């Protein structure tokens, strides 16, 4: 066998530990709430992180210029956002790096790092790409992993999930406009301060204070249509990726419900355990994954206990989610968001959120199977569930997407016979 190695790699700058002092690290707008916490997680470890907020046509145009036609939309958004930011003049390209997460799964998303490098090479060859992953990829240019960082990240995910969930539960019903936003700000300020002080481990008190703050926001007694959002991780959460889906749903008089990020993290961990179970892929890391799973799942249960005690509906228990997954799809489907998407849809249906937007980037490969492909089976199990798959794409017009969501909402309202009086848009 030919063992000779030909090297076709381009030279690219790596992120050296010394750059922590000199470089600003740009982070894409994906999870607005969570990433504000991550900024402080990494900040305490010496990284100067800046979550990006730039949007608009020029971001998409930069993405279109630098990303292959058939590559996925999230890659296009992320890359467009970096380049637009670097061109804005706000950052010194010689002292800026960009950060991206990498899961190492069998989907294209694991290739974001090379795609970003290719794009940067054309215009900002000096900007290094920093990978944030737990799979040991990009050893020369990744965030240094430590147990402490993993633990802090876990807390950031859980606090972010709690804040996000509370916010969207309160926002549609707030009596005084802006009250939910103000509450979110104060909670985030408290949480960020805890991360800065290294006191993020005060799990119970930080969760309780968040729960308490949100339950103190005055709300109107009214019934609104709940709309669950599932899908590919980026377009599900990122306002840039999903054309401000949450705002649109709020403006339509609905309560948007986003599944927590911890589901996705637990899903990634479980996939490694499943590989060991199904295919005998056991290694040193298997044990670590098992420990991580126990720890993280334990935290989710603790969080749920607190939410229940505060009188709220808990997040969907992850073991329960796995059991639901088994009803509709095999847990071996582990690429992209895999079995998690049908599982979350089933969980929504079980808990009375029967209207679901399945957000996916146009042409997303795993979503052929777990999104559009699974709808029929879900409908067999839950006849009342009302799912609309929406493709997000740089050029698909907003009218097109909104019209489809409106179709779903219209169907939901006429079937549930709830009378909505919103503006002049009365539908009985």
């Amino acid at each position: 066998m030919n063992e000779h190695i030909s090297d076709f790699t381009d030279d690219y700058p790596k992120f050296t530990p010394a750059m922590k002092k000199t470089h600003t690290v740009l982070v894409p707008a994906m999870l607005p709430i969570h990433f504000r916490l991550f900024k402080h997680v990494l900040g305490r470890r010496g990284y100067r992180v800046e979550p990006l907020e730039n949007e608009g046509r020029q971001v998409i145009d930069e993405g279109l210029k630098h990303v292959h036609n058939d590559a996925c939309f999230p890659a296009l958004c992320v890359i467009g956002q970096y380049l637009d930011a670097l061109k804005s003049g706000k950052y010194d390209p010689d002292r800026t790096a960009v950060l991206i997460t990498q899961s190492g799964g069998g989907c294209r998303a694991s290739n974001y790092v090379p795609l970003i490098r290719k794009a940067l090479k054309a215009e900002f060859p000096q900007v290094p790409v920093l990978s944030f992953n737990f799979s040991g990829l990009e050893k020369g240019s990744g965030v240094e992993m430590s147990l402490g960082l993993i633990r802090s990240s876990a807390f950031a995910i859980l606090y972010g999930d709690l804040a996000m969930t509370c916010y969207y539960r309160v926002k549609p019903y707030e009596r005084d406009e802006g009250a939910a936003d103000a509450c979110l700000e104060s909670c985030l300020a408290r949480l960020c301060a805890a991360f800065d002080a290294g006191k993020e481990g005060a799990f119970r008190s930080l969760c309780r204070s968040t729960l308490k703050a949100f339950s103190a926001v005055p709300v109107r007694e009214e019934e609104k249509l709940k709309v669950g959002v599932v899908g590919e991780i980026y377009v599900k959460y990122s306002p840039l990726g999903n054309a401000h889906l949450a705002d649109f749903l709020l403006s339509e008089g609905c309560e948007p419900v986003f599944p927590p990020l911890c589901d996705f993290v637990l899903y990634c961990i479980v996939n490694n355990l499943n590989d060991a179970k199904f295919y005998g892929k056991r290694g040193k890391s298997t044990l670590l994954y098992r420990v991580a799973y126990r720890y993280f799942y334990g935290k989710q249960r603790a969080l749920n206990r607190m939410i229940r005690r505060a009188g709220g509906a808990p997040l969907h228990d992850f073991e329960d989610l796995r059991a639901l997954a088994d009803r509709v799809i095999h847990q071996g489907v582990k690429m992209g968001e895999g079995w998690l998407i049908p599982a979350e849809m089933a969980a929504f249906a079980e808990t009375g959120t029967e209207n679901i937007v399945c957000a996916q980037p146009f042409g997303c490969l795993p979503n052929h199977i777990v999104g559009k492909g699974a709808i029929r089976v879900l409908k067999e199990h839950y006849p009342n569930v009302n799912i609309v798959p929406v493709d997000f794409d740089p050029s698909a017009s907003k009218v097109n997407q909104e019209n489809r969501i409106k179709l779903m909402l219209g169907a939901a309202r006429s079937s549930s016979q709830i009378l909505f009086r919103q503006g002049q848009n009365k539908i009985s």
Partner: protein
Amino acid sequence: MAITLGIDVGSTTVKLCLLDGEKRLYSSYSRHFSRVRECLLEELGKAAKFAQEVQPCLTGSAGLGLAQRAGLPFVQEVQAAYGAIRKLYPSADVAVELGGEDAKIIFLTGGVEQRMNGSCAGGTGAFIDQMATLLGISVDEMDELSLQAEKVYPIASRCGVFAKSDIQPLLNQGASKSDIAASIFRAVVDQTVTGLAQGRKIAGQVLFLGGPLFFLRGLRKAFRETLHLNDETAIFPDDAPVFMSLGAAMHAETSAAMPMSELIARIGRVETGEIAVGQPLFSSRREYDEFIARHMRSDLRFENIYSYRGDAYLGVDAGSTTTKLLLITPDNKILFSHYQTNNGQPLEIVAGKLRELYSLMGDRIVIRGACATGYGEEMLKAALKLDFGIVETMAHFKAALHFDPAVDFIIDIGGQDIKCFKVKNRAVDSIMLNEACSSGCGSFIQTFAAAMGMGIEEFSRLGLFAAHPVELGSRCTVFMNSSVKQAQKEGASVEDISAGLSSSIVKNAIYKVIRARTPDELGEHIVVQGGTFLNDAVLRSFEKETGKEVVRPAIAGLMGAFGAALYAKENTPPETLISSVATEAELERFAYSAKSVNCRGCTSHCAVNILTFSDGRRFVSGNKCERGAGLKVVKEPLDLYKFKYETLLSLPQRKGGVRVGIPLQLVMYEQLPLWTGFFETCGFEVVLSDRSSRELYFKGQHTVASDTACYPAKLMHGHIESLLDKGVDFIFYPCESYNLDEHDSVNHYNCPVVAYYPELLKANNDRLTDDNLVMPYLDPNDLPSAARALRRALKKYRIPAGVVKAGLREGMRRMREYHESVVAEGARIMREARAAGKRIVVLAGRPYHADPEINHGIDKLLCSLGLAVVSEDAVFEAGDLVNVNVLNQWTYHARLYRAAEYCSRTDDASLVQLVSFGCGIDAITTDEVRAILESRGKLYTQIKIDEINNLGVVKIRLRSMLAAVEELHRRGA
């Protein structure tokens, strides 16, 4: 009771309906030609005669924004229809509505479900309009013609661009317009069945709504036939065109009443919203004049055909939508030129023009040489006996060299395609052609102009001085349609849209076809050509986007013909005094008849067109191999694809016992030896699914859930149906996250579609159960766990653990054996090719590209071009291990990189990469494979394949590649 008014503002039409309770007072249907507000106000004015006060409700895609701004009630159009159907047609089971740019389906019984087309889905009214424009007839004429059809051709209906590339060759080959018209309608039906119904059967009483279904009898017929409906089950209501507005009117019962005058005033007051706009093309008249003057300089001189005496050379370019002729003198002066839309009949046009030429030339001028190029090259050469034929890319290159000997970049935007060449050392260095899904070429503007009710010249002139050109994005036609729709909704003017479209075409070409990251990558000496660049707005947009002054010859639209004429001039030997082109006398007698038949040369049964000329000669097209053309067949084609396919089909041997069905598609194109080995050892009989074909695809079409998946995946549905029909005991199709670990990549995944397709099949096919579809999750690299999974999955058959393990070992042995035979046969082919002095093409794709229905016979085509064909799996082990820029983590893709490495240092081998449309992973591999080859100075050629079965474009691409390789060799030698 108050009077209600339903207003449906769609993408192309405005529909009104006035109801007094149940009674219809008034309704109207009119096209708005994108002047939405004006048209609506006018229609409302007419309706005002019937009611002073109304309760209004808007609906429709363009009604949404209007309702919001004017503060009027709105109902989603499918909802509107749903309510009306329930009231008026309570017995209907399904309703299908086709509109201008939307298609909808509502299942009314057995679980209400409402669906709309996705964002990439043609098969709508706009698609039909586009196709009529392509045929050069009105929609009504197309309808009329379709009723006389005798034959239906397969046409892709996913989007207009695809369908065009299917239809164009049919036109050029002389297929009858009535057959094509019927095929177009059939394509719309297929789109509705796959794209919308997505696995749910359209049955029972079906209601057909919307304008196109009301006005087009041919379309109605196609629906009835395909869905097997009769007079009772297919309902075409009289109010179909205005049905949505009727629904909106019914819905308006809860709206507040208002005087008609106020309604009109409110809509009249709606302000233009915010839209992204770009810079005007010209800031002043002076700038425009300078621009015009600069481009006037690149022109050819003319010679008077009435007085000239001497030799002449003729170039004919039979393009996809236009036919071009040019007659030049030996010193390159133009004697005669002609440019015409070919209306699908290039042969008649060329024959007619030749007659005209003979009468103009008298005996003063002698044509010494004639050369044909373009889509119709071979047909023209055969029919009118031109001396030469060259591939169109070469013709364009020759012509560009004439205008700028230092040219380093050529871009040609024609009616249907975009061609770009980079030039190094006066030879073509790389060729890029547009993919089916990044179109947006000349005919696109033409269709748009027609939709706005004006000619293309007028439409593009409007854009020149637009103050705020709209930003429309840079993707395919369907996307641009909806961007335009949105811009119109926001009140953009026709001028701004025209300028915006020009700039979209340019951006599309630069960033999507050429894939340039910055305009500087193009080059310094750019020649632009093709009919589309005669449009000054497009030319200006191109210069603005690149920031460069480019050369546009005044004969931009005739460059192919000019290049052909130059070729004829250069290649006519001195001793040839007169061209062999049909003489005046021959033309007098010239006539032909066209016939289309199914070739019976082999099992492919290609649909071939036969032109029979008056002198008895024949020309055959549409064939994939020599057999169809009636030529002698190459006895032993050097074709590894054929070997692989035939070897696989012959694998199952054992008869008797439990019958297990294996669908020969996707991963089975490699693992069939493994699973036949396994099952035969366990005492089962392996039954293969039917061979892939278009018919097989249609058989499973109704269970396809995602119409943007790749064609191999979509074909799988047909394979499953065929196995179910064969009554096998169960179907075996495992889910494999991991493929074989060949120790040359970071990981060894399958792509998500290959890995988990059984899940989708099971979820969307009623006939599949846990019992008859066995789909264990297993990893072929780990025998113990795979054996456990198999034993569990097949527990019904109680196979002893030892037998399962032995079966797996036997399977793995057979798979190794198969692979070794592929490598050995590949080596033999290369040896023989070298002995015979043939070039070798490594046709690199995935194992399932060996399926003739997927590769559309590209291997045979390559053989007929005198090449030897091997596949990537036969050579990758001879390639080095590679370090690449991307994460190298899929088994099949890792082979591609190594095959490319092998080709990059093998002189007589060229790599042609086959890419399935919709393969997201190849979006990553193609750039990398290209980079590997180009880093070592080799050409890269990519062919994108889908369900479309059009080898015309592929042939041009392959011939261009061969011509470029030869050119490189000539210079290198």
